[in-house]
């Protein structure tokens, strides 16, 4: 058997295993079977085993072990590096986290957890601003048109001079203002829904609050729709894998 034939056979076996696993895992849609349980355990075992090796090989070995022990000039002629043995201190700190399982020593696990929480908390002010600052700024939109010369923004075609483009971009046209108004009303009404500190009174505030609730529901509906579409894409991909990548390609030689 030549190397190409071996490769083809390996590919066939690999994809066939994938097809069997797909069918096995989808069999739960019919009912929970032993077949499903088997493939569920295979999947979990493979994922855990693969991750363990990958974490060591791709991360710990290169980012921690190699730096810690350093290396002499070797066959690859890389220059020698000194070992950063201070990195060894990470081992006892890491083991302290596992003391959470010991009744006597579980206080130790609070040390690494405290370090992590401290690091995380220290970053939050900057992170909060980086996350929400630009969004707050982008929400302050003008709602009054600056020109009525055109209802919609004129096309900014490549043949226009920069000054002409700047003049068009500077104005707020009626349709843009309406869009901005819809955005601002949605934002403010959704905010009023979360005003729990005092009782909302009056027809306007109650109506505005109700509008906010509607807007939130419409938003949740759109989010749910997007999620459903994502799930459909997964099913379609699995069907593609079974019918096109396996059945058609393996038996009839590709699409």
């Amino acid at each position: 058997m030549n190397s190409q034939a071996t490769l083809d056979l390996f590919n066939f076996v690999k994809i066939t295993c994938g097809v069997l696993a797909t069918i096995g895992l989808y069999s739960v849609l019919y009912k929970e079977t032993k077949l499903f349980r088997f493939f569920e355990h295979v999947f979990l075992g493979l994922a855990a085993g693969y991750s363990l090796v990958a974490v060591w090989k791709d991360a710990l070995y290169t980012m921690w072990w190699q730096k810690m022990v350093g290396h002499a000039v070797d066959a690859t002629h890389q220059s020698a590096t000194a070992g950063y043995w201070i990195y060894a201190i990470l081992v006892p700190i890491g083991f302290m986290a596992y003391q959470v399982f010991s009744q006597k020593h579980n206080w130790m696990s609070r040390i690494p957890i405290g370090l992590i929480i401290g690091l995380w908390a220290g970053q939050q002010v900057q992170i909060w601003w980086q996350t929400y600052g630009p969004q707050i700024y982008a929400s302050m939109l003008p709602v009054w048109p600056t020109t009525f010369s055109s209802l919609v923004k004129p096309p900014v075609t490549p043949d226009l001079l920069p000054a002409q483009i700047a003049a068009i971009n500077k104005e707020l046209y009626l349709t843009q203002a309406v869009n901005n108004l819809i955005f601002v009303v949605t934002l403010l009404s959704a905010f009023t829904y979360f005003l729990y500190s005092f009782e909302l009174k009056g027809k306007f505030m109650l109506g505005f609050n109700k509008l906010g609730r509607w807007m939130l529901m419409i938003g949740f509906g759109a989010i749910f729709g997007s999620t459903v579409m994502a799930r459909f894409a997964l099913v379609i991909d699995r069907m593609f894998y079974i019918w096109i990548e396996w059945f058609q390609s393996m038996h009839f030689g590709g699409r």
Partner: protein
Amino acid sequence: MKTEKTGFWQKLQNVDRRVLYLILVVTTSVLLSPMFANISIPDDPEPSSKALYYKLMSAPDNKTVFVQSDWTISTRGENAAHLEALLRVLMSRHIKFVIFTVADPQAPGVYRDVIRTINSERKSEGLKEYKLWEDYLDLKYFPNAEGTLNAIASDVRKAFGGVTAKDPTTGQDRNVFESPVLANVRAVSDASLYMIVTASSSIDRAVERLNEKATLALMCTGVIGPSAIPWFQAGQVKGVAVGLRGGLDVEYMMKHGLNYGSDPKTARWAGHESQVAPPVSEGKSLARANLYFLSFHGAIILLILAVVVGNIGMFVTRKKRTA
């Protein structure tokens, strides 16, 4: 004892869910079959996808692109289409890239499959294959997204400093910053674009830590999309392709361009007519997302039908009860 007669609509309401699953599987499978392979659904790309394509096509070809690929097989339906389209654009423009993940140890295996597929596709078309070290670097997996992205933001040379790759000319492992791909990169801002292909909240971590340091753009699943669009509207992310539709948007523009000449099929971006991006000059354009899209429509039509039938059934049953 008098038994109540079950009507047609009541019977429909009581259909076993497994029958619905079977109908879904049969419909999606049939629509994927080769007899429908040449049907392309017309598309008018989303503004966020247009912004993404414009960024990709206007990125200078002498600068490296960072690709953070945070997805695995479970979201291949959407993310594979994204990564394939992204790499096809980069390869057609001969742009060098580094690829890595901060989300999942299994992600490198998956993105390597995509690179291999596109390389063999390019080989069969007589185009230049992308080579490790020369054209791209595979930096593998970095655990702890927060820590890694902080490191990339503050000093990319330290963040990737321990990573080596094989130099094919000497066969020796060398530091990745000696490769032509990263030789000119001193900070993350030296990359023309920082692309994130994700199925998780790793985009949140990237925006938190990188949005002032790098030009971020995103390709994400439909689950992540709704929470990512505000990033785009606030300018924190320069372009977003959401879900399978986003994948098709990019593929469509790869085929027909953006605001490109007088082609009636080119995607027009109202208010941004001066931002012109041509179709890709080589390689495939319409691919995975286009193949899936008809089947996707079939599934959505089924869903709408099921909702309509279920509601009619509910109203008819309620009316019978009150009569």
